[in-house]
């Protein structure tokens, strides 16, 4: 499925290790295979590579020493935060090291006056909101993995969550970062005022999947906690009706704090996992969270319920108190473990489509699933068109995995066809190198490579991730290389 790049400089691996052991405290360098295996993959377990070593520094000066050794020996570096990535971004590179930033886990400052948090990259997403809570503030981006994923990883992946539609992605909530360039220089990018001179490098670094620099500090925007939040759940007989309701709510001028859909297969799985009282007869439930001042939440709840009824909702549940609201959300948040109980394996896709295509795309996915003889459940961020089809399968059945992959590719093709994206929040990593060729032209991919070289000329930072080689696109069959004219012909292809 994926061919690993061979590192040219392997002859010096033992010299390199010696240098690391010589310059760092012993406990910060891991190189025994059984200990290394903990780091052989991230959340995407299909790809596993043993790194040459894992380093877990405590100080910036130590990272500088590591960088300089890597540079000298030509050893690639994969930065690792929580390792929860789902696209293989933190999968080691053969012959390379994993640089774990787990010890950079301090909240440096909560500044309630300017409403910002200054944190180290290894702080978990949840920790930021917890530390800000005493001031009535929180950090809006909320990936479901928030108890385990780190701010460094959120920045690298431009992570999002349920609240994206109203409060934006990570990129909209980071004000500044300190970054180490591969040359070992510390650069400050952005500032608390929200704008800095020159080009907007901050936006370039956010979402760059650890390929352009190592984030060593972040200044995050904190928002005041809403006075009140309510969840309205509409139960529908038809997933198309639920999808159309999404557009209607948005068109009415309401921007919900969260707008999620679960289809029949997922509702059934969840109901048998925890009992939340969703009617199992429903073909789809639409969860709509409204937050703000009491008055506006009241007004919006009323409007949303009206729209749901008009659009054919058979039953409406409105949370009466915080406890009920959290219970209803728990149903949504249990969708993945619940799916894990009804199938030996599942593959969670991630793509984005325009809202107006929701009904069409869901129908097409159902048709494709039938064609491939696979079950697909849907639970997703409907408000921003970020779909997560769950393809259920059994890995022990010969050939099933290949069918799953092929169906997955078809679904992503569909996303691009309707004007969306091959990934809404999980990133490209190793997983989506092929599909990148669906979304971008030859020239666009070459432009990405030029940006990569501008910041990391020797390709030491997370090489081989996120941007496919042109050769790969040619193999993927979506891109035509004219008369063998490939840019960067000198660079290895894999």
């Amino acid at each position, binding site marked *: 499925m994926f061919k690993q790049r061979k590192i040219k400089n392997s002859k010096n691996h033992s010299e390199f290790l010696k240098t690391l052991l010589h310059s760092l405290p012993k406990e910060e360098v891991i190189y025994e295979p059984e200990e290394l295996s903990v780091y052989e993959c991230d959340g995407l377990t299909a790809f596993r590579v043993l790194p040459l070593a894992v380093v877990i520094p405590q100080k910036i000066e130590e990272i500088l020493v590591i960088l300089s050794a890597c540079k000298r020996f030509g050893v690639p570096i994969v930065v690792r935060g929580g390792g929860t990535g789902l696209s293989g971004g933190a999968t080691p590179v053969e012959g390379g090291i994993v640089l774990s930033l787990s010890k950079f886990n301090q909240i440096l400052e909560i500044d309630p006056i300017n409403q910002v948090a200054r944190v180290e990259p290894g702080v978990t997403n949840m920790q930021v909101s917890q530390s800000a809570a005493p001031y009535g503030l929180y950090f809006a981006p909320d990936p479901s993995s928030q108890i385990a994923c780190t701010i460094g990883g959120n920045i690298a992946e431009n992570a999002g969550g349920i609240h994206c539609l109203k409060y934006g992605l990570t990129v909209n909530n980071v004000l500044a970062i300190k970054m180490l360039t591969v040359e070992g220089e510390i650069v400050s990018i952005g500032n608390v005022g929200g704008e800095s001179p020159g080009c*907007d*490098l901050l936006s370039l670094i956010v979402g760059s999947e650890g390929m352009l620099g190592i984030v060593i500090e972040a200044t995050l925007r904190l928002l005041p906690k809403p006075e009140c939040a309510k969840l309205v759940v509409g139960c529908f007989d038809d997933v198309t009706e639920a999808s159309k309701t999404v557009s209607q709510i948005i068109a009415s001028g309401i921007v919900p704090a969260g707008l999620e859909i679960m289809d029949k297969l997922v509702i059934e799985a969840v109901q048998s996992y925890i009992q939340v009282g969703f009617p199992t007869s429903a073909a789809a439930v639409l969860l709509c969270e409204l937050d703000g001042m009491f008055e506006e939440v009241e007004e919006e709840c009323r409007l949303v319920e009206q729209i749901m009824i008009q659009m054919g909702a058979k039953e409406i549940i409105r949370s009466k108190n915080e406890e009920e609201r959290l219970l209803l959300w728990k149903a949504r948040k249990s969708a993945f473990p619940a799916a894990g109980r009804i199938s030996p394996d599942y593959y969670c896709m991630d793509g984005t489509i325009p809202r107006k295509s929701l009904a069409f795309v869901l129908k097409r996915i159902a048709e494709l699933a039938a064609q491939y003889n696979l079950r697909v459940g849907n639970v997703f961020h409907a408000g921003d068109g970020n779909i997560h089809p769950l393809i259920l399968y059994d890995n022990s059945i010969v050939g099933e995995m290949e069918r799953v992959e092929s169906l997955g590719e078809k679904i992503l093709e569909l996303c691009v066809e309707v004007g*969306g994206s091959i*990934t809404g929040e999980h990133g490209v990593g190793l997983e989506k190198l092929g599909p990148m060729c669906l979304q971008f032209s030859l020239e666009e991919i070459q432009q990405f490579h030029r940006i990569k070289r501008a910041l990391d000329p020797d390709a030491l930072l997370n090489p081989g991730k996120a941007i496919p080689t042109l050769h790969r696109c040619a193999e993927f069959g979506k891109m035509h290389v004219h008369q063998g004219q490939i840019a960067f012909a000198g660079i290895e292809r894999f």
Partner: protein
Amino acid sequence: MIDCPSSATDSITNELIEKIRRVINLKEKIKIIGGGTKERLGRKVVGKPINVSENRGIITYDPAELFVTVKSGTPIGSLEEVLKQHGQYLPFEPPHLGEQATVGGVVACGLSGPSRPYKGALKDYLLKVRIINGKGEVLTFGSQVIKNVAGFDLFRLMAGAQGTLGIILDVTFKVLPLPPFSTTVVLEKNATEALRFLSIIAAKYFPLSASCYYNNKLYVRISGYEKSVRRAEKEIGGDILANDHQFWNSVKERTHPFFINSQRLWRLVLPQAAPLLPMEGEWFFDWGGSQRWWKGEEDNREAIFRWARDQGGYAWCHDKEVTLASPLDTALLRIHRRLKEAFDPFGLLNPGRIYEEF
């Protein structure tokens, strides 16, 4: 829903692309001109003028999808008019600074208006940009959906790059519904009190949408559902400002008396609660205290650049002819130069517009 079906308008884009490519092939330096309303907002560019303002029109707009795709030469005012007809707007409230102001110029300058601290900046509402790079290639980055993490976000990089990285052909913005109700209160405060007060109200969940300070008066705009706005208005206190729309427009468009007849105008972008500049002069605070305009006698530019930097911010100095930005440190400058080379290897596009070096 508006779709631009006319092939005539597409032929204008194609002609423009051909023209730009011809100039690029000759390796001529290019000075990109939109509405030409803000020459003075950067450094002088010497190059063959390429006017992009004929490339205008809305390409796609479906209000229920909350996005609009528009050609870069479209006057920003006319785009806002169309959005308004559908009860929507660009929440970053871009300054126009002249009727000719185009979408491309607004994006290239990356400027946001009074709502910026509460609703976000221009870059937060950019979803997709199609550009021509300095090699004459037509490239699209981003997409019409708000969640898209495929590839580097090269579209946001165009905001504020002032045309040094690419010529913008068309742009997709995220749009939002206009708030149903809006009001502005005015409170008597001195500058220090005003900054403190702004921090306090910003930490509450009030639907604030703008705040500025001038001459011992603090102005706070609140926008949302009438009932919530009314309660916030009561809790914040102060007098209601009549004609507030006109007032905020004068702040946004810099037609407020403070901005008139300024030979030299400083703009500082700072943390909201940063202290006052330790120099005498006249002040105007926008963005809840983050964007500070200053008119004073100080001639030592470097001292002000340094002061802004020490506060964690930066500064612009608008002189009669030119705008100078805080200098970049060596590492940042190197990154900028390399990025410029990555987009524009021959240094043809708006050379020297922001900094002499790229």
